[in-house]
């Protein structure tokens, strides 16, 4: 059985517990994220877990890759603590402002510089943008087939694996030859927890940082200038309503509510 080399794409996202602190700069139409800690998307942990399990079963290597400003290495440290063999952060001001297409392009070139992969794993979507677009687009730039919403993987033989594409109210089982890009969903596994050994491991492994020049990308295809989509306006959503609190004993408030709802004409006709 041939060993399998996996690359896991991970995304630094603003910590969800601080999302209500994200504010809008009305003048520049950009989001102020300063002071909001970076976290690892939950599905990235499932993607990494799947890669680690495959290495345990078949041997090979697991490499984590991410794109982000300096300082976002910490999400790659997580990957190393859990057992990734190496990690690389694509970091360059030229990558900033990338939409999914420009992001996928840069990641694909990073993966090429790593020497490619038998399987590229991603979480099916990120926590913040949740577009789910980067996986299929990385696959296109690497000229590999892709499967998203993967809820089960089975290795068939040296070249082939079977993946379950989970769709609404069902699934499609496919067989696909490596190399392949797989975007996994939550139910696929239970991610492991860090161990003391992992932190020792971290000291011995280095996280590389590569610039745009180092991965040899076409600079017109990365960052803001390489992004076909543009944000022309950003607004916050107003969800405030009347907020009228009904007071009294339970049977009393129940009666009041029914009256109000009848007046609003939203109760089904009997």
């Amino acid at each position, binding site marked *: 059985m041939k060993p399998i080399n996996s690359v896991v794409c991970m995304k630094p996202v603003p910590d969800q517990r601080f999302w209500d602190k994200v504010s809008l700069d009305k003048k520049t139409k950009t989001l102020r994220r300063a002071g909001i800690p970076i976290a690892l998307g939950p599905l990235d942990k499932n993607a990494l877990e799947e890669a680690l399990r495959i290495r345990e079963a078949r041997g090979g290597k697991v490499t984590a890759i991410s794109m982000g400003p300096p300082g976002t290495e910490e999400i790659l440290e997580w990957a190393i603590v859990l057992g990734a063999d190496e990690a690389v952060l694509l970091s360059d001001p030229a990558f900033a402002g990338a939409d999914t297409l420009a992001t996928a392009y840069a990641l694909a070139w990073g993966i090429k510089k790593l020497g490619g992969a038998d399987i590229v794993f991603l979480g099916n979507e990120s926590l913040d943008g949740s577009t789910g677009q980067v996986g299929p687009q990385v696959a296109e730039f690497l000229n590999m087939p892709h499967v998203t919403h993967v809820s089960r993987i089975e290795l068939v033989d040296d070249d082939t694996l079977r993946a379950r594409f989970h769709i609404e109210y069902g699934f499609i089982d496919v067989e696909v030859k490596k190399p392949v890009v797989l975007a996994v969903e939550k139910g696929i596994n239970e991610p492991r927890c860090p161990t003391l050994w992992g932190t020792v491991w971290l000291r011995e492994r280095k996280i590389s940082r590569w610039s745009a020049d180092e991965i040899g990308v076409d600079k017109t295809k990365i960052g803001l200038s390489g992004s*076909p989509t543009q944000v022309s306006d950003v607004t916050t*959503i107003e969800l405030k309503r009347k907020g009228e609190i009904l007071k009294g004993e339970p049977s009393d408030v129940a009666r009041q509510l*029914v009256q109000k709802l009848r007046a609003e004409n939203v109760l089904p006709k009997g």
Partner: protein
Amino acid sequence: MKEHKGVWVFAEQRGGKLSDVGLELLGIGRKIADKQQEGLAAVLMGHKVKPLVDELGEYGADRVYLADNPLLEVYRSDAYGRLMQEMIQQYKPNILIMGATSIGADLAPRVAAKVNTGLSAHCVGFDVDDKGQFVGQVPGFGGAVMASVICPNHYPQMATARPGFFEKLERQKGRKTEAVNVDVKFKEEDLSIKVVGTFREEVKTRPLESADVVVAGGYGVGGKENWKLVEELAEVLGGGVGATRPPCDEGWADLEGQMIGQSGKTVRPSLYIGVGISGAMHHLVGIKDTKVVVAINKDPNAPIFQAADYGIVGDLCQIIPRLVEAMRVSF
């Protein structure tokens, strides 16, 4: 003269039945096409799907690009992606929208990368701005912010749209459409993905998205026993039962069919009653277009009270039975 013309909608079908989202997109697509003074086309791929052409016409498509081939029987990203790329290169549409279903959200980004264009994800609104530019409304950060996304210099301008956000046009029986047959030039051996099995669960209940009354429960409901009260309230109102994520994780509710919010379903009933729901942004954005929102929660500081029209602070075990009683009397 602009080279790229026409609004295209991907008419997703499964097992020879059109998905609702494709028909909904024909509704909004019709409006955009009229504003742009361009035609509206549906793209239909599958095997033995020719009978669906008329239905697409009756829901607003002026033209249907039909690719009918055994290789397309079940969706796979390489076959559908390749064919869509060939069609785009041949017919040069201006705008292409697809449903953000698992299949649409899998296909659209691949196609966008193939033809080197931008893609706005999971839009909840579409418009054409003063410059005649196609604009997609994209929610972010769990729905807290809404971005208007444009794609000014690449074609087609692509977007996926959340199911349930747009209304189908009224079906015009007998409305004519032009069918354009599209040849499939590749063979099975050119494809790297092989379908080895499918499973499809028949959905019998009315989907939550189209329910007129929705009663939803959160973690505050407290347990499977109390969940029955939520269901009872929904039943007396003839409504659907929704949930936030924790009850789905706990197994009281079904994740796929019942979760409401940014990563779940979007509902737009006349009446929504949230029980034991604190009111996280991700959930509230999924009920944004409800006419009247009622919140029942024992925590007076729960944020949902701000986002509700009527609030009741109290224990659901006390409130719901009284409410059921009062409603029964009322009908």
